[in-house]
C-alpha cells in the first residue's frame, strides 16, 4: 500500500530559531563594564574572603551574595594550559594556539584566556603573563576586550604558589 513514485523520506529538516533577551545579572554586569574600561573587577566573599573574577554574584561555596568589589591588576600566572590544534565551528583564531588558565594576582580563581606572543612549545605552567587590551575605541563590556595575554618576562611563579588553583 505504500508504493510511491518518490524516494522514501528518511530525514526531516526542522529549523528552530528562538530569540531571547539575555541579562548576565548585577554582578557580572559590573565585571563586564569593568572590561569596557580595561580593568578586571572581582568580588570578595564576606564569609571566606576569597576573590572571584568574574563573580556571578554569589560565593559558590558559601551561597551568600558577594558585594565587596575588588579591582584586580592586569597581571597573573598561567596555572595550566592546553594547545588547541583542532578546528571547530565558531573558532576565530588560527591554530595551533594556547588556551591557558590564568590566575590574576590577588584573585582566588583562574579563568580561561588566550595566550599569544610565545611559541606553543615554550609555554610553561607558572609563567607570568599580562593582559593585552584591544584599542580603547574597541573596548566593549565583553571578554573580547582582552585581545590576549602575553608573557611579562618575569621569573616563573613557584608551583606551590598556584597549585591550589589549577
Amino acid at each position: 500500500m505504500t508504493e510511491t513514485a518518490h524516494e522514501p523520506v528518511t530525514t526531516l529538516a526542522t529549523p528552530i530559531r528562538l530569540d531571547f533577551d539575555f541579562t548576565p545579572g548585577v554582578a557580572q554586569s559590573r565585571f563586564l563594564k569593568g572590561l569596557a574600561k580595561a580593568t578586571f573587577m572581582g568580588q570578595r566573599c564576606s564569609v571566606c574572603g576569597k576573590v572571584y573574577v568574574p563573580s556571578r554574584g554569589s560565593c559558590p561555596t558559601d551561597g551568600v551574595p558577594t558585594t565587596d568589589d575588588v579591582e584586580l591588576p592586569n597581571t597573573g600566572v598561567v596555572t595550566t594550559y592546553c594547545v588547541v590544534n583542532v578546528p571547530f565551528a565558531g573558532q576565530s583564531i588560527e591554530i595551533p594556539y594556547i588556551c591557558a588558565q590564568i590566575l590574576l594576582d590577588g584573585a582566588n580563581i583562574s579563568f580561561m584566556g588566550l595566550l599569544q606572543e610565545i611559541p606553543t612549545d615554550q609555554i610553561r605552567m607558572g609563567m607570568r603573563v599580562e593582559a593585552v587590551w584591544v584599542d580603547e575605541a574597541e573596548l566593549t563590556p565583553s571578554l573580547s576586550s582582552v585581545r590576549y595575554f602575553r608573557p611579562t618576562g618575569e621569573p616563573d611563579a613557584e608551583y606551590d604558589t598556584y597549585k591550589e588553583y589549577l
Partner: protein
Amino acid sequence: MSERCAVIGVGQTHHKAKRDDISIAGLVREAAKAALEDAELTWADIDAVVIGKAPDMFEGNMMPEIYLAPALGAVGKPMIRVHTAGSVGGSTSIVAAHLIRSGAHKRVLTVAYEKQSDSDAMWALSVPQPFAAPLLAGAGGYFAPHIRAYMRRSGAPDHIGRMVAVKDRQNAMRNPYAHLHLADISMEMVEESMMLWDPLRYLEACPSSDGAAAMVLAAEDSISGRYPPAWVHGMAMRSEPTMFAGRDQVNPQAGRDCAADVYAQAGVTDPRKDFDVAEVYVPFSWYEPMWLENLGFCDLGDGWKLTESGATAFDGDIPWNTSGGVLSSNPIGASGMLRFLEVAMQVRGQAGEHQVDGARLALGQAYGGGSQFFSMWVVGSEKP
C-alpha cells in the same frame, strides 16, 4: 523502611555516529524493548518510568518525557525526567532505584539516551551566549589543562594515555553494541592520530554517538528475567560548585565523597580487591588514572602505575571498562547509564565476550559537567 532493589533487565541500542534509520522514539524503544525482553516483562508490567538525558538542545525537543511518554509505556503511570549533565545516566538509574527502595513501586523502567546527530554535540554543549568569552577551546579544551595538571602532579609518562586509548578500544571489540570497532588499534596508531588539544590526541578522546540504554529495576518480591538479578548494594550522588577558589579539578572532593559513601553502603574497604570489575566514565584516556586515584583504587599519584602494570586491562586483576567505555561509545545522556548497565551485566553473567569470569561485585561511576557532578552504584550477584 528501605526495600532491596535489583536490576532484572538491561537493553541498549547499537551506538553509532548517526542512527539515521530511526526516530528519537524508535531509538529509546530499541533499548527499552530489549530491557523488557531481558526481564521477561511487557509494558503493562511496569509501574513507573524514569528517563534521563543531557541538554534538550541536542534534539531541540524540550522536556522530552512529554513527547516520549507513549513510546515508553508511561501512559497512566508516573514518569520523571532527570538532568544532571554528563552524570545523568547514572543519576537517572539512581532516581529509578529510589522509587523501588522507597516502596513506591515494584518495577521501574529507566531509560537514558541522546540522539546528538540531530544537531551537533559541540554546538549543543556550548551554545554561544552573549557576553561570554569567545569560544576558545571546545570540549576537550576544558579537560586538557586538567590532564596536564595531573601529569605534572603525578609525574606520569606520556604513554599512559595511549595505553588506555588502546585498552578500551580493544575491549570494545568484544562488545557488539559499541560505536567504535577499531580492529587494528595500537599504541602507534594513537600516537600518529592528530593532536587535538595538546596533550590530548584524537584517539584519546571519545566519539560522538547516537544511542540509548535502558534497565528494568525491581523490588525483591518482583524478580523475573532471563538472568539472575544484579542487586544494588550502594548508590550515591555528589555535587560540588562548578568553579570555586581552590577547587581540585584533578581529584575532586565530590568524587571522593561519593565513592566513600557507596563503599560504606556496600561494605567495600579495598576497592581494588573487593570489586571484580569497574566501569568508569572515561571520556578522555587520562581520566582512567585520574579516577583510579579519585576512587581510591590506589594511592594518590599511583593511578598511572596501575594502568601501566596492566591491572585495569581485561585480563588484569581489576578490569576497567570492559564494555569499551565512553572512549568507544558516547551518546552523552546515556553514557552514564551504560556504565551502570555494564556492571549489572557483569554480575548477572550476561556480558558474553566481555564477561569477566566470576564477576560478583562491581562499581559503576559517572561524572558530569566540569567534573563537579558524580553518581555511582555498586551492584552484586549476592543479595545485600
